[in-house]
């Protein structure tokens, strides 16, 4: 990660002094997809799998590896945030979210679930970095995919707040409600920007949220979570673009 071990007091267990996520959190987060890919590969190697199942398993390996690669790519990006090699620009959230829905559709379909966009026809533009915002919404959607129950759809929602000054992009899942103590931990985590061994989702290190928070900060945005009776919405609030008002 570009720094020597000696610079980091909590190199193995917590956020690094320079704000990098712990190696433990990253390793933990990658264990599940790697373990799954290994199981499926070993099974295919044995060769006793019907052709239909083989195809399905290969697809699962491919989609799981893409998911794991997204995490490693996000990690790399989060480390390079300090380089400030990104620009903020007016972005059409509708278009961005439509692209994300298209990109995620194969993964959701493979899980027999649906992801859809819920928004007004002409939402206001917002100010953000396209790549970082895309990564945040993908991250929230990945999270929602895991949490959604049955065949419920995951919804990406665009809303306008504070008299049009703030645009909220939220990802709503219809899963079990987050227990109140977990919600408090989660809100603390979102506020403090540090992955801890206490999990937003029990199987998660919270690394995805940590990275999302970093990306949001870099765009002067704010991320949060709202609990519902039947699930949760993870959201990011960003400044609306006043480009139109200048015309």
């Amino acid at each position, binding site marked *: 990660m570009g720094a020597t071990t000696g610079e980091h007091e909590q190199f193995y267990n917590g956020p690094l002094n320079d704000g990098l996520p712990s190696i433990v959190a990253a390793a933990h987060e990658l264990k*599940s997809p790697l*373990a799954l890919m290994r*199981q499926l590969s*070993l099974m295919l190697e*044995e060769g006793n799998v019907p052709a239909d199942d083989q195809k399905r398993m290969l697809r699962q390996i491919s989609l799981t590896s893409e998911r794991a690669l997204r995490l490693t790519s996000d990690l790399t990006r989060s480390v390079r945030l300090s380089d400030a090699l990104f620009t903020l620009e007016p972005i059409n959230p509708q278009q961005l979210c439509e692209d994300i829905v298209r990109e995620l559709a194969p993964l959701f379909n493979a899980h027999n679930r649906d992801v859809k966009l819920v928004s007004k026809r002409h939402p206001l533009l917002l100010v953000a970095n396209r790549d970082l915002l895309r990564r945040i919404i993908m991250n929230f959607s990945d999270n929602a995919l*895991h949490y959604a129950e049955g065949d419920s759809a995951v919804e990406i929602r665009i809303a306008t707040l504070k008299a049009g000054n703030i645009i909220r992009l939220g990802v709503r899942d219809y899963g*079990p409600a987050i227990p109140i103590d977990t919600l408090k931990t989660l809100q603390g985590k979102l506020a403090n920007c540090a992955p801890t061994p206490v999990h937003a989702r*029990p199987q998660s290190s919270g690394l995805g949220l940590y990275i999302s928070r970093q990306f949001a900060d870099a765009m002067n945005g704010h991320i949060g979570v709202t609990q519902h009776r039947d699930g949760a919405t993870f959201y990011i609030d960003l400044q609306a673009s006043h480009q139109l008002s200048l015309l």
Partner: protein
Amino acid sequence: MKTPSVLIVEDDEWLAEQHQRVLTIAGYKATVAPHAIAAIQLIDEIHPDAIILDVLLTGNTAFALLHELQSYGDTGSIPIILCTNLASELSIDNLKPYGVKRILDKTTMAPDDVVAAVRNVLL
């Protein structure tokens, strides 16, 4: 002879499917529960002969489920096989009082290890 029934409690849908595939090929009747609440309902319905249990589940963890199972005479005797990424952090001796008979490490196990573990706890 009745086909032995195994309940797989695993919130990773595709890993659960994989365990189910292997156990079905081996002749077991395998059912999947994605979380602890669904597991409790299914245990009442299917009375599994063994349970394969992930530790870090969505919602309640495996330990909440283990406590629940130990609260009743009939469910307390169902052998449990923990299947987890956290195997290196768990001790079978500490978990035996909760009905845990085996711990499988997801990161090192072979697909057939679930079958071997089930076979072993049902001896």
